[in-house]
C-alpha cells in the first residue's frame, strides 16, 4: 500500500490522489449507520438519550446532588446518520490544513478522549497553552474550554479547526476539501437527504459542525462501578473504595462540593491555585473571557468521569498522577500560587490535613469512575482515503510536553 506523507502535499491534492488510489477504492462504498450509538433510542429518526439516571429528580433541575440525582440539561436528538458522519469526520486528518492531525489526535479514544500530554500539540508541532480535555459526557456540559470561553460545542470547535497551531484550517479550505471528496458528498447527502435533492448541492459548513457535535455529544459514560453503587448495588465497590468515596464526599476533603455527582462537576469556575509547569507564564484562565478580574486563575471544574484514563492532570498537566493531583488539595491554601499573584482562592481550598492513607483511598475511589462501555469503534477506512493518524503519537513527544518531565 502506498503511504503518502500528508505533509508533502496539499490536502486537496492528497485527498484526490488517495481517493484515486486503488487501495482506497472502498472509501466511496462507506455507508452511514442507521442505528443510534449505545445509550440512545431511535425515536422518529432521532437518537434520544437513555440512562438510569433519568429515574431520578434533581433539585431545581440543576443536575447536581448525591447518588440518586438526575442529570443536568443535555443535548441529544441527532439522527444516527449525522452522528456516524461526525465519527468519520472526527477521525479524518483531512480536516486539518496539512492533513497531519485529526480531532482524534488530541482526543484519542484509547486515552479517555484526551492525549496523554500535559499540553497538547497540534499541526504546528508547538505545545499549546493547555491540556486537551476528555470528550466523555460533553452532552451535559454548558461551557467549553478550560476558561469557559465557548457556550456551545459548535462555538468551541472553531478554535481547534482554525487555530494556526492546531488544525490550521479555514472554513473555505475545509469546505473546498470536503466538497472535493465524492465519498464525503455522498455521506453528507445521507445525513441531510433533504438538503441534497439537487444534483449541484454542496456541503455546508454548518453541516460539518453539526455532524462533529452530534458525534461528540454521543459519548456517554454513566455505567461505571460507582454508578452501579449509586443505583443501589452496595457490593459494586470494595471496602477501600467506599472509604475513598466517603473521604471524597466528606466535608474535610470536600471534593464532592465541586466535583458533584452525577457528573462529578458542578460546571462552575473555581480559582484553586494549581501550579503551571515550570517556566510557563501564569495562566489567568477565565478572568479574561468572562470579564471578571476576581476569576483570575479560575478554570472550569472538570468532570472526574474516566479521570483515571486522562493523566496528566490540571489545566496544563502539572501533575503526572492522580495521587499527585489529590495531594495538591492538602498542600495548604494557595501554597502553589506564584509570588505576586493575589488570587481569590476558592473557599473549599483549605487545609484538610488528609492522611496518606486517605489520599490513597481517594485514588481508589476515582478509579471506580471509569466506564468505556459505550466507546465508539474507529472507522476501518476514512472517506478521504487517508490513513488515521491519531495513534502515531510519538512517545518521545509525550514525555517532552508532559507534566511528568518537570513535576517535583
Amino acid at each position, binding site marked *: 500500500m502506498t503511504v503518502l506523507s500528508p505533509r508533502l502535499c496539499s490536502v486537496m491534492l492528497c485527498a484526490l490522489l488517495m481517493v484515486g488510489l486503488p487501495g482506497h477504492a472502498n472509501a466511496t462504498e462507506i455507508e452511514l449507520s442507521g*442505528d443510534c450509538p*449505545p*445509550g*440512545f*433510542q431511535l425515536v422518529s429518526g432521532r437518537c434520544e438519550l*437513555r*440512562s*438510569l439516571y*433519568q*429515574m*431520578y*429528580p*434533581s*433539585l*431545581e433541575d*440543576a443536575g*447536581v*446532588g*448525591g*447518588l*440518586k*440525582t438526575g442529570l443536568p440539561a443535555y443535548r441529544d436528538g441527532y439522527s444516527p446518520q449525522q452522528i456516524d458522519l461526525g465519527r468519520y469526520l472526527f477521525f479524518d486528518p483531512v480536516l486539518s490544513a496539512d492533513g497531519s492531525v485529526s480531532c482524534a489526535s488530541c482526543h484519542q479514544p484509547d486515552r479517555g478522549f484526551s492525549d496523554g500530554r500535559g499540553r497538547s500539540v497540534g499541526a504546528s508541532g508547538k505545545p499549546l497553552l493547555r491540556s486537551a480535555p476528555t470528550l466523555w459526557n460533553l452532552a451535559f456540559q454548558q461551557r467549553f474550554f478550560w476558561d469557559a470561553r465557548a457556550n456551545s460545542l459548535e462555538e468551541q470547535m472553531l478554535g481547534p479547526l482554525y487555530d494556526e497551531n492546531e488544525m490550521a484550517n479555514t472554513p473555505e479550505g475545509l469546505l473546498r476539501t470536503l466538497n472535493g471528496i465524492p465519498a464525503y458528498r455522498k455521506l453528507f447527502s445521507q445525513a441531510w437527504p433533504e438538503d441534497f435533492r439537487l444534483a449541484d448541492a454542496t456541503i455546508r459548513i454548518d453541516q460539518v459542525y453539526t455532524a462533529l457535535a452530534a458525534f461528540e455529544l454521543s459519548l456517554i459514560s*454513566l*455505567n461505571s462501578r460507582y454508578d*452501579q*453503587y449509586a*443505583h443501589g*448495588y452496595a457490593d*459494586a465497590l470494595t471496602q477501600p473504595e*467506599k472509604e475513598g468515596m*466517603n*473521604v471524597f*464526599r*466528606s*466535608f*474535610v*476533603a470536600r471534593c*464532592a462540593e465541586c466535583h*458533584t*455527582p452525577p457528573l462529578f462537576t*458542578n*460546571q*462552575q*469556575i473555581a*480559582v484553586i491555585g494549581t501550579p503551571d509547569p515550570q517556566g510557563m507564564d501564569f495562566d489567568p484562565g477565565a478572568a479574561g473571557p468572562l*470579564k*471578571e478580574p*476576581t*476569576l483570575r486563575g*479560575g478554570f472550569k471544574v472538570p468532570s472526574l468521569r474516566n479521570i483515571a484514563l486522562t493523566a496528566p492532570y490540571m489545566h496544563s498537566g502539572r501533575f503526572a498522577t492522580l495521587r499527585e493531583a489529590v495531594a495538591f488539595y492538602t498542600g495548604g*491554601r494557595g501554597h502553589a500560587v506564584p509570588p505576586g499573584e493575589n488570587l*481569590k*482562592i*476558592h*473557599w473549599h481550598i*483549605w*487545609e*484538610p*490535613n488528609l492522611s496518606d492513607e486517605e489520599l490513597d483511598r481517594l485514588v481508589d475511589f476515582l478509579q471506580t469512575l471509569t466506564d468505556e462501555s*459505550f466507546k465508539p469503534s474507529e472507522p476501518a477506512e476514512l472517506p478521504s482515503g487517508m490513513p488515521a493518524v491519531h495513534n502515531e503519537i510519538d512517545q518521545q513527544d509525550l514525555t517532552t510536553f508532559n507534566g511528568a518531565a518537570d513535576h517535583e
Partner: protein
Amino acid sequence: MNKIAIIVGAAVVLAGGYYLGKMGQQPATVIKVGSESKAAFTSTGAEEVAAAAAGVVRSLATPTSGELIVVKDGESIQDAVVAASPGAVIKVMPGTYKETVYIDKDNITLSGVIEQGKYPVLEGEGLRNDAVLYSGNGVTVENLYITHYKGNGVMGQAGNNFIIRNNYIVDTGVYGIFPQLGKNGIVSHNIVSGIEDAGIYVGMSDNVDVVFNQVFDSVAGIEIENSRHALVESNFVYNNTGGILAFITPGLPIKTCGDVLIRNNFVVDNNHDNFAIPGSLVSNIPHGTGVLVMACDDVVVEGNIITGNNSVGITFTDFSLAGNAANDPDSEPNPNRPRILNNIMQDNGKDPAPAVRAVLAAMLETTGPDIVDTVGMDDGCILNPERFRTIGLGKYTDCEFSTTANVASYTLPEPVPARSMEDVDKGRLVYYGVCAGCHAYGSRMIGPPTQIIQALYMDNPEGIAEYAANPVKKREDYPQMPPQSHLDDETRLAAARFMLKLTQ
C-alpha cells in the same frame, strides 16, 4: 363606621390642638393608626403554604416497615445500616461509637436511645471526617450526641424528606448540621455549639424548616444559603459571631436564595470572636452581628428578639461583604425586597467590630445601628421604623402586610415522591442505558443481536433475567457476558421484558 371614626378623631385632634395651644404647651405627638387590616403575606411558595395550612403542620415522618435493629455499645452502627432494608429503624443504645455512618438507602430511621440522660456518643477523636452522611430519601437522624469530628456532624447530600432532630452536637468541625441539595426537611430541637463555621447550615435546598434549636458558641449560628422557602423560627441563637444568616454564596451551581422567613427567634449577644477558617465566607462576619442577609431575596425578619449584638442588629447587604471570594457573574448580588416586621431590638451596636467601626466613623457614628441596609434598597419595607436606629433605610416604605402567620411551615404537605417514578419505563432505560453497550437490535456488537436473543427466549423474560445475573460462556465466537447482578431482580426482569418487545 371607619369614616365616622376618622371624623371624630380629626375633631378630637383639632379640639386638643386648640386646647393645648391655648395653654401655651407643646402639642402631643399624634400617631395615625391605620384602621384597615393589612393584606395577608404572600410568597412564591404560596401554594405549598395553602396546602400545608389545611393539614397538620410538619406531619413529615420517615416511613417504617417494622424492622428494628438494635446497636449496643461496642457494636458498629454502620453494620446495622448495611443490614437494614428501607423502612428499618436502627436504635442505638447509649455508649461510644467511633465511626463514620453513611446511609445510601431510603427511609432509614437512625435513632439514639437516651437513658437517664446518657446518649449514644459518636466520637470523632479529632480524626474522623463526618459523623453521619446520608444520600437516601426519607432519612431521620435523632437523639445522637456527636462530638470531635473534623468535618460535619450530620451531612445530607440530596436526600429529600429528611428529619434531623433532638441531636446534641458539640465541638465538631465545620458544620454541625448540613443538609445540602435536598427538598422538604425539618431541622428541629437540636443543641449545637462550638462549630467553626455554621451550627446549622441549610445549603442549596428547598422547603426546609429550622425550628426550636439552640445554637451557640459557633462562628455562624444558623445559615440559609442558596435555598428557597426556608422557615427559621423559634430558635435560641446566642454568643455566636453572627446569629442568623441568609445568603447567596457566589460560584455555586444553584444561584438563587429567596423566600426565607426569620421569625420569632431569640438572637442574643452574638459577640463571639470570629474563629472561622481563613478563606471561608463566614470569616468575613464581624463579631456582634445579629441577623445578616447577603444577596438573598424576599427575606422577612419578623417578631425576633434581637438584643445585645455589639455590631449591628439586622444587616442587609450585597457581595461587598464577601471580599475574599471571586464574583459570580451569574448571581444577582442585591438583597431584593427586604421586609422587616415588628422585631424587638435593644442594646445592639454598643461595641462594634473594627470593620463596622470604620464604616460608622465615616458617618461620624460610634454606635452600631439596630438595622442597616448597606445597599440602600428601594424595594424594602419596614413597620414602625421610628422605633429603631437605622442606616440606609431611607427608601423603605410601609409594609403591605403585618404578619406571616398564615405560613405555618415551609415543609410540603406531602413528601416529595419516591425517585422511581411510575411513568418511567425502567426496562427501556436499562436496555438502552446499559444493555445497548453490547447488544444492538439487528447487528452484531460485543454480544449477539437482540433479534437472536428474542428468538431464543420468546415468552421467557425470566430466563433472560436469570441468565444475565449469572452468565456462562455460551458461544465460541463471542466473549462471555459479564454478570449484571448489580441490577436487582425486578430491574433485570423489566429490561428482559422490554428486550423481547423490541421491533427495531
